[in-house]
């Protein structure tokens, strides 16, 4: 699709965390949190990333942001490979890529005022000679950002504990916007919020995207939230992406058996629909990521598994225009 400009290109990304098995043992084991994912984020779109708890969503985002040093793979932001960039290049790239975190309580420094938290990225840039800004300019910018995210500028000197969860999330968003980034990696930014506050923050993300042409990688485990906010959706399972498609297409025409089960199990707030729904109930538990499997990672729980699935890992392949799936029901092994 040449008409889509690619902003972020993730290739073969792996993040394996070493774990020690015994106190004295040298033999290393690994948590294969992310085990080879490929995807692209196009300029101006929202790519939603869904999947069960522990499937590697946060790790993917953190490895992209270089908060972790990836075990393997490349992460191109505007054609610069961040995994090979030096310190100064990385810092400069941060201007274009910011993160918003899940927990609005833990992600803000409790000893800094809201104003200082929002100004921090600008001050860091200034200190490193990447930007010039006078004290007054910074002050103006902070007030302007607070207004953009729906916080009164009179709250500038308050501390995080004096704000509600929704307001703290607004502070986190204002901080992410401070340097005018192109891309924001949003790691479950609404999951900790009450239903009534969640919709306020989702609207804010949409409004800011319209106003500034922002691009989002948006992580959530709530499928309705992902459906609402995303242009395209990537579904993750046990360290791998199993399906990517346009949001509308994925929800109408899920291909991967895991996506199918996920969609069928998500509760719908309408008693009449709930009474008539057919759920695909998966058996078994979510498997642990401490070993690599030769075949499909979903094999144990898959209601449609075949012999081949146990032996060979299916690749993520385009089976319909714009729709990629990694499942042998749709393509033969190489």
């Amino acid at each position, binding site marked *: 699709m040449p008409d889509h400009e690619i902003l972020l290109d993730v290739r073969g990304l792996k993040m394996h965390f070493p774990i020690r098995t015994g106190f004295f043992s040298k033999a290393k084991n690994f948590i294969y949190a992310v085990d080879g994912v490929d995807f692209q984020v196009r300029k101006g779109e929202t790519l939603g990333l869904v999947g069960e708890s522990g499937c590697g969503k946060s790790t993917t985002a953190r490895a992209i942001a270089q908060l972790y040093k990836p075990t393997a793979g490349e992460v191109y932001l505007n054609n610069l490979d961040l995994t090979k960039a030096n310190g100064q290049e990385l810092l400069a790239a941060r201007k274009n890529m910011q993160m918003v975190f899940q927990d609005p309580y833990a992600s803000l420094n409790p000893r800094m005022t809201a104003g200082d938290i929002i100004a921090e990225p600008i001050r860091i840039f200034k200190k490193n000679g990447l930007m010039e800004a006078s004290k007054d300019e910074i002050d103006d910018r902070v007030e302007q950002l607070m207004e953009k995210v729906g916080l009164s500028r009179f709250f500038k000197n308050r501390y995080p504990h004096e704000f*509600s969860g929704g307001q703290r999330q607004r502070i986190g968003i204002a901080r992410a916007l401070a340097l005018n980034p192109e891309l924001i990696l949003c790691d479950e930014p609404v999951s900790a919020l009450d239903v*009534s506050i969640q919709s306020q923050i989702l609207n804010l993300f949409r409004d800011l995207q319209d106003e500034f042409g922002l691009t989002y990688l948006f992580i959530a485990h709530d499928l309705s939230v992902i459906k609402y906010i995303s242009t395209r959706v990537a579904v993750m399972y046990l360290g791998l992406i199993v399906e990517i498609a346009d949001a509308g297409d994925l929800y109408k025409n899920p291909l991967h058996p895991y996506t199918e089960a996920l969609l069928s199990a998500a509760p*719908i707030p309408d008693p009449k629909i*709930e009474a008539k729904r057919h759920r695909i109930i998966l058996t078994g538990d*979510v498997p642990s990521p401490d070993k690599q499997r030769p075949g499909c990672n979903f094999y144990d729980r898959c209601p449609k598994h075949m012999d081949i699935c146990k032996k060979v890992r299916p690749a993520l392949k385009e089976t319909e225009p714009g729709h990629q799936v990694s499942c042998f029901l749709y393509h033969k092994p190489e």
Partner: protein
Amino acid sequence: MSDEVILQVKDLKTYFTVDEGVVKAVDGVSFELHRGETLGIVGESGSGKSVTNLSIINLIPMPPGKIAGGQVLFHGKDMLTMSPNEIREIRGNKISMIFQDPMTSLNPFLRISTQMVETIVLHQGLSKEESKTKAIEMLKLAGIPAPEKRIDQYPHQFSGGMRQRVMIAMGLSCNPEILIADEPTSALDVTIQAQILELMQELTRRLGTAVILITHSLGVVAGMCNTICVMYAGRIVERGRTEEIFESPRHPYTMGLIRSVPRLDQETRGRLYSIPGQPPNVIDLPDCCPFYPRCDKVMDICKKKYPPTVPFEKEQSAACWLYAKEAQNA
């Protein structure tokens, strides 16, 4: 669900004294639970859902907490005035509770078998062997594979979803008349959540248990509950049969809540509906409608007096001045 009322909560008030003042966490809550009924409690974080249920089974830490008034009638007998012995007889036996975090109620140092057998011996007067057989049977019902082997393991040897199932098995092992489940699935994944909810439904159908289900998910109540209570700032602001609440919500908070969730089964274009403002601070609430600062239908009277509860058709009712006749006269 039958007509027999097994639990009646009447004008329950539970307050906490903190440095900043008095938190009226539960301030005049009343509801009835019938045999076999599944009642959902939904509402904003801090609206008093957990405190309501902890008050019922007498687990409020005092101080700082205090039951400031009301009655909790279990088969007509007030649990709030029972002796500790009488309460212990009921709790974990006739009324059992599943807490949000299974690790808080499972002892990490004891085998699952020890914990389950102890409860069953204590409450049902069965022998140890009989109790173990019963425990294994419950674990099997709860979908734990090879329960006769796994029963002798420790809690940390189970995954989160399995621990939750152990809790459900324990909760139901004494054939309780009432099961109180506080966000039993919110820590779980959608696919595991579906497994657990299906299991709870199946077990309650078979054993005739009544359930109080606390959740923030409107989807879960829609699929599970016969009736719903909506709480806001320590009170029930609306109640009714599940279909009524979703089809014709009356209280502006309920209406807003239902409209503000994006839907999996519908296209939502443009902005989502959202309730403006922040949840109330429940410390020293004035005696007005606690929702008025966020309400798009607010009138003068709403800022002055707490609205009366107005009944509608069937079992639905809402505490809102929009429906109170006096509003016009005031």
